[in-house]
């Protein structure tokens, strides 16, 4: 068995800074745990800031240093999102707080084409999410984690080699705490090798069974069960921006990180989502919310990014954005691509939905619609808008009536027509032709109609669909235009 450890040395910093590209991170920034700094960005270290300094000393070195307190909760949440993302490489991923993951990688090695490729993929993948990682492959999870934490990233092929590698590490690599470390130093134990050469019973007596167990697990002499991470059934990501962003379009970079993370989860779960809920948090305004929808469960991050760009382009922000939150709906299983035995007939295939998604993202959900028939004799109720999410009904089930003798255009509401010499008038008297159609129905609900419909021709030769009310003032109305279509 081989284990891949991913150690994230800068995680406390990255939970704050990953919303910005590295080259844009100009402000010196350091993260402190209590009084002392634990990590800082490049721009800060260029000015002499390093881990271990007290806040006061750091400020003396660099006056414009921004110091933020570490947020362990955010780090844990980030680790869990990364664990979900890492399920693309292995079905067994474990979270090792405070800043590492370990993956069972035996089978993945062959699938991904070797240790180097796998490590490379993991590293570039994490970099695209805004995290720097050290990746080490070793035959035991504890061994891989220890080597990665110490910065040794060469893959270790077998137990023998692992023992040799570990033996060369100083005692501090075991993370036993300052008291034990001092104790060992006084005993003249300065590397793990010295520790391993001691007889086991004596070691346990002096430093406790725990250390003995730890060493055995490091070397693979004792089982080391790891609790596998269970991926969530929906994505919930949050990204704090290092500096407030005033323009919507400038959010794309940061949003991309969340989308990539989501895509990792989707890939690992063989799932897709159809809806994404975005929330943009401002300093002192209610949050801005919007949704992105796709016509079918979607996994491809590029597609989502395209939709997001369209949406952000027409978004005006009430105030600068501090934090971006992305929530997905419950993940939906993505049907594996199905190959039909017989080619599908053209009529049964549905048009490509990605155009719909693009149009809706930019123009709004209600701006793109289809049409369908409704079984009602009232002309204005004989049809309705069909949402593009609705399944198209098979033609035979259509309750409505297709009518060849109807106009191609209907006015949104009937327009009253003038009347001269008892004839309807529109840029001249209208020729009513011969025959009318009486439509009298709907007496059972609130909008009954009782009308005589005529196909009228204007002096220009344009054909109109007009009606006269049968009751009341018996007024004339224009209801439709034939658009010079073929006559019924």
């Amino acid at each position, binding site marked *: 068995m081989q284990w891949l450890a991913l150690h994230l040395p800068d995680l406390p910093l990255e939970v704050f800074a990953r919303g910005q590209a590295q080259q844009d991170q100009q402000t010196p920034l350091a993260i402190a745990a209590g009084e002392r700094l634990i990590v800082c960005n490049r721009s800060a270290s260029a000015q002499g800031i390093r881990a271990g300094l007290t806040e006061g000393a750091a400020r003396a070195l660099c006056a414009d240093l921004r110091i933020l307190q570490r947020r362990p909760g955010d780090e844990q949440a980030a680790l869990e999102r990364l664990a979900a993302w890492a399920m693309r490489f292995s079905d067994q991923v474990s979270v090792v707080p405070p800043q590492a993951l370990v993956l069972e990688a035996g089978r993945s090695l062959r699938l991904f084409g070797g240790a180097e490729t796998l490590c490379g993929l993991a590293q570039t993948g994490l970099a695209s999410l805004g995290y720097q990682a050290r990746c080490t492959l070793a035959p035991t999870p504890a061994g891989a984690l220890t080597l990665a934490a110490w910065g040794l990233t060469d893959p270790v092929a077998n137990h023998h080699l692992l023992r040799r590698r570990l033996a060369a590490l100083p005692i501090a690599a075991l993370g036993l705490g300052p008291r034990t470390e001092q104790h060992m130093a006084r005993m003249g134990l300065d590397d793990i090798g010295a520790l391993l050469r001691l007889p086991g019973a004596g070691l346990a007596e002096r430093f406790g069974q725990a250390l003995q167990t730890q060493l055995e697990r490091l070397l693979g002499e004792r089982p080391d069960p790891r609790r596998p991470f269970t991926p969530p059934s929906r994505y919930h990501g949050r990204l704090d921006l290092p500096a407030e962003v005033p323009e919507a379009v400038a959010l794309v970079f940061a949003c991309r990180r969340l989308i990539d993370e989501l895509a990792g989860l989707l890939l690992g779960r063989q799932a897709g989502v159809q809806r994404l809920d975005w929330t943009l948090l401002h300093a002192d305004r209610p949050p801005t919310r919007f949704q992105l929808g796709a016509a079918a469960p979607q996994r491809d991050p590029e597609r989502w990014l395209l939709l997001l760009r369209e949406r952000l382009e027409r978004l005006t922000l009430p105030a600068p954005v501090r934090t971006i939150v992305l929530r997905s709906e419950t993940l939906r299983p993505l049907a594996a691509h199905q190959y039909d035995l017989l080619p599908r007939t053209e009529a049964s295939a549905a048009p490509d939905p990605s155009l719909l998604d693009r149009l809706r993202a930019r123009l709004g959900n209600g701006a793109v619609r*289809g049409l369908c028939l409704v079984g009602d004799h009232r002309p204005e109720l004989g049809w309705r808008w069909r949402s593009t999410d609705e399944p198209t009904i098979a033609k035979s089930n259509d309750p409505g009536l297709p009518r060849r003798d109807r106009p191609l*255009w209907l006015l949104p509401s009937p327009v009253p027509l003038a009347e001269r010499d008892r004839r309807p008038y529109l840029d001249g008297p209208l020729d009513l032709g011969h025959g009318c159609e009486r439509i009298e129905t709907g007496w059972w609900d609130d909008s009954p109609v009782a009308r005589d419909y005529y196909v009228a021709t204007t002096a220009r*030769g344009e054909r109109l669909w007009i009606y006269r009310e049968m009751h009341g003032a018996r007024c004339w109305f224009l209801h439709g235009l034939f658009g010079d279509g073929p006559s019924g």
Partner: protein
Amino acid sequence: MMPTAEADRSGFSVLEQLLERRSDLWRGGDTPVRSDGLPTGFPALDQALVTAGWPRNGLIEILVERRGDAFGLVLPLLIALSVQPRWLLLVDPPWLPYAPALAGHGLELSRLLVCQAGEQAPWAMEQGLRSGACAAVLGWDADWPVQGLRRLQLAAAETATPALLFRPVVRARQPSPARLRLQAEPTTAGLRLTVHKQRGGNGGQQIQL
């Protein structure tokens, strides 16, 4: 008189020789007829067009007096295209496309996509063309700048998707990159069409449908 006629004739023969020898020269009048157009559903119109139907790729501009006019002119095309599993995208139609009538003429309603785009209409039409998911894209009017028309013509030509744009007849004087320009006006005897321009052929024909 004689010398002139002779000069004419010699010039004529030089031209003939050139035409015979070179394949990249041809007479303007007899452009190669390509009958790969989409049938318009009106034989008289098919005959007047060099493509023997609506051009498959490129912008088709239909000049009308009132918004909504001449929709019936493109209906046979839409009906024929609606058998394909692709959208017929209507961007900002002037009135409600009346579903019972469209279905009554045989249009497959589930292919119809109506989009309210407002100022984004040129963008929406281009998206429709570029997506490859549309069998045809229709737009109405809008006071489009020539660059907008050019983009549309380009998108339609590159994707081999017909783009139909209805524009007010007052724009007839504006130059247009459209592949085909028609004017349509209703008369008591039916629709009268005037071909203003067609690439690879002559304009000026009048057709009474």
